[in-house]
């Protein structure tokens, strides 16, 4: 079973994503901020991470940077999920090494498709 880590500080967004990916037979992990995300990533080494950017304390950019600097974690696929949708934000996200940048609000069906195609 493939492992997915959902990182967001909005409980309802987390709830919906958890439902969707459990139904797609993923093993779902949840983190509510950046530092929690790093802890879980180190422990569980998920296949893919859905990462919010604007979070208290450690933000999404910092999480991604940590992953890329770590040999064990740098191959984990990362999708940014963010309400920031200016071109400069997207460019920055992809430059840092995210595999995909999806702006909020998003369609859950499309998101599932993207996740599956990245994990192929």
């Amino acid at each position: 079973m493939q492992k997915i880590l959902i990182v967001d500080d909005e409980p309802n967004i987390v709830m919906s994503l958890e439902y969707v990916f459990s139904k797609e037979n993923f093993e779902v992990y949840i983190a509510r901020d950046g530092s929690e995300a790093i802890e879980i990533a180190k422990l569980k080494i998920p296949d893919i991470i859905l990462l919010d950017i604007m979070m208290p304390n450690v933000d999404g950019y910092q999480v991604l940077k940590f992953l890329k600097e770590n040999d064990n974690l740098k191959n984990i696929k990362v999708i940014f999920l963010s309400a920031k949708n200016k071109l400069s934000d997207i460019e920055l996200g992809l430059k840092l090494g995210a595999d995909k940048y999806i702006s909020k609000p998003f369609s859950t069906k499309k998101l599932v498709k993207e996740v599956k195609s990245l994990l192929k």
Partner: protein
Amino acid sequence: MSSFLVIFIIIVYLSAIFYVAYWAEKNSKSKWVNNPYVYALSLAVYCTAWTYYGSVGLAATSGLKFLTIYLGPVIIIPSWIILMRKIIKISKGNKISSLADFISLRYGNDRFLGALVTLVCVLAIVPYISLQLKAISETFNVITNHKITSNYIIFDTTFYIAILLAIFAAFFGTQHTDATERHKGIITAVALESIIKLVFFLVIGVYVTFYLFNGPTDIYNQASILPNFKVQHTIGGLEGGFNWFFLSLLSMIAIMLLPRQFQVTVVENEREKYLSKVTWLFPLYLLLFNIFVIFIAWGGNVFFKGQQVDADLFTLMLPLINGHEILALLVFLGGFSAAISMVVISTLSLSTMLSNNLIIPYGFLNKFSRGESKKNTVSIKIIRRISIFSLIILAYFFYKSFTLDRTLVSIGLISFVLIAQLAPSFFGGLFWRRGSARGAKYGLIVGVIITVYTLVIPFTIDSQLISSSFINEGLFGIGILKPDQLFGIQFLEPVPHAFFWSLFFNIFTYTIYSVSIVGNYRERNFAEMFVDSSKYALLHEDAYIWKGKAYVKDIRKVLTRFLGERRTERALNLFYMKYNINKNTQLADARLVNFSEKLLTGSIGSASSRILISSVVKEEEISLPEVLKILDETQKAKESNKELKEKDKQKDEFLDAVAHELKTPITSIRALSEILLDNKDIEFETKTKFLNSIVGESDRVSRLINNILDLEKLATGKEKLELNNNFIKNTIFKSIDSVAQLAVKKDIKINYEGLNDAELFYDEDRIQQVLINMLSNAIKFSQEKNGVVSVFTYVNKKTVEVSVEDNGKGIGEDELALIFDKFYQSKNQNILKPKGSGLGLAISKQIIESHNGKIWAQNIKPHGARITFTLPINLN
């Protein structure tokens, strides 16, 4: 040393310098060419052959006085960070290419004044250039052991060197027609030569001090037994002090106003920030240059005791007599570099002035206004090249025909005093609005006449060894008119004496004319721009007031004659873009007139460009008060424009934040609804949970929208406060009632024992809104178990203070001021609790401030946060 060898070395040396200049011109973008060090070193063109030989000569005969020439610059240079920055800003903003242009533009583009400044500069600098040629020739003779210079020019090496220098200056100095373009090649070569002359001088200094003698103490001991030693190591009492003072002041002016210094410091300046390097590097350079002067001088005095050796040549003679020919050659080359740097930069700057401020405005305007661009450009370049050659040849013949049997220093100082006559109009123009063109002209003329009378004539007569009664007895035998003791002042030496009186009458005339006669509007317009340069720099073309009628077509025609079709087109396009003007506009406005004048200024000087442009436009007179009024208005309009832009930016940021905040609940709603839509078979419990969340998030959206509207209304003052007499205790109780249920649910106690009452004038609904927000925040952040929220009031004389505190974790110290910002969410929020809109405290702040109160946050001990607001008791 054989003269052929020396000539060969000179040729090799000159080729190397030419090559460096050529390379720098080709690689003008290289970091070797563009850096503050090259800039600072190029300023050392101040140190000429005079520094190399003359300082030593002066130190050997009259002691420490040579230091004043370097003391002045060292004192004034730190102020450049402000003063020179201002000068550079003005010059760049107005495309000024020389000192004459600077002064003539400041006084309303005055053609005559520009020409006058040019003439004074030529008068002052040509003898100075000939002095450099003399130094080259004399030292050449010494090192090749020639006793006499040939009287035939064809056999005179110096003549060929002068011609080579003219070719160098003409080739690298006239690459561009626009004289404000920087001459990278020449400047880089000069910077390199500055290193060469310093290093070689230090080498000879060390050689004399530590090789010929056993260190400074040894030289001192030996020199101190010589007669005349006292003069050589003291200032010379109070009288000497006055002389020192005026000489330092003189060199302070010289370092800024010598044409070559203005050229390297202002015209060749690439970036303003390079100045900060100059403020320490250049004084350091001067210090290094002067360390050994006194030792070489004393050493020479000891060594050549009782012999007839020219003290100016000590530097060269010491190694030569001791058989160290290579060292002597180094000294020669060092002095040679110092001389040629000065000659090249001086002729370059003088030729720009000659062409742009004298020849073109007085002779070629008609021809240019009919010629086509290619021809005109060639003509301008030819005028400059001819100027360069004429100047150098003039200097050569000056040196040839006057047997300048004087020490190097005296001629240099005479030219300093002449140049100092520009100081009143230059500095007056920078800092005094009333300074007028007429004052500048008459002041300058008077100053020059006095200098000629008190210094130039006695000097010339003296050097021709003609004794004259008027020097000894005064003009017409009147004692107080003695040229070197004007009005009976006896304690000043000739140079400080002439400097003092000439500048005295110069300033006096300048001031009297400026105060008594008001200049025209044009003059005054430029006066405002120069004096308040920082204020008007932002206005660019708007800072110039012009009224009249002009057609773009005509102006374009004039521009094309000098810049050619392509450059004119490009410049105008840039102009249209900058001011957002339609390209097909027929009538020109003040900005275009000013812009075009500036475009031409670099090529033909400000006075000519003004004459050319005004020949195609119909100008109306404006009164002085009108000019000042319009200037003031433009300035204010610009400022309010800036404020608007700032507000615009804040609004953009706010909208960005709003969009982000709205998207978050919408994301949840969208995702949850999609799931419900796609999964018909979803369990009832999950379905209910999802639907509840959707309702909650929808509420959040509407709450957010209400808050934003609320905030907007309060901020713009659209909503009037309903002010009434109320009792604060009553309002607080009402607010506590509204949150009581929430508190009970969370098991949090609300403590209101510390309430004092007061009657106040406020909008009760709004204050209640603030209190509810504060209370619910406190409930949210209180300790999970045994949570306590306390409300209390203090009634002071003028205000009532209301505080709400919790016993939670408190607020991060760095966040205390930020929490009142829109959309600021505290880092310490427990994310499992529902988030607020991030606007509550921003709204509260707005409400309290519209009541003329204050609101702030602080942490309390042992733990918890307190928000306090005040309301004034007498609300006006």
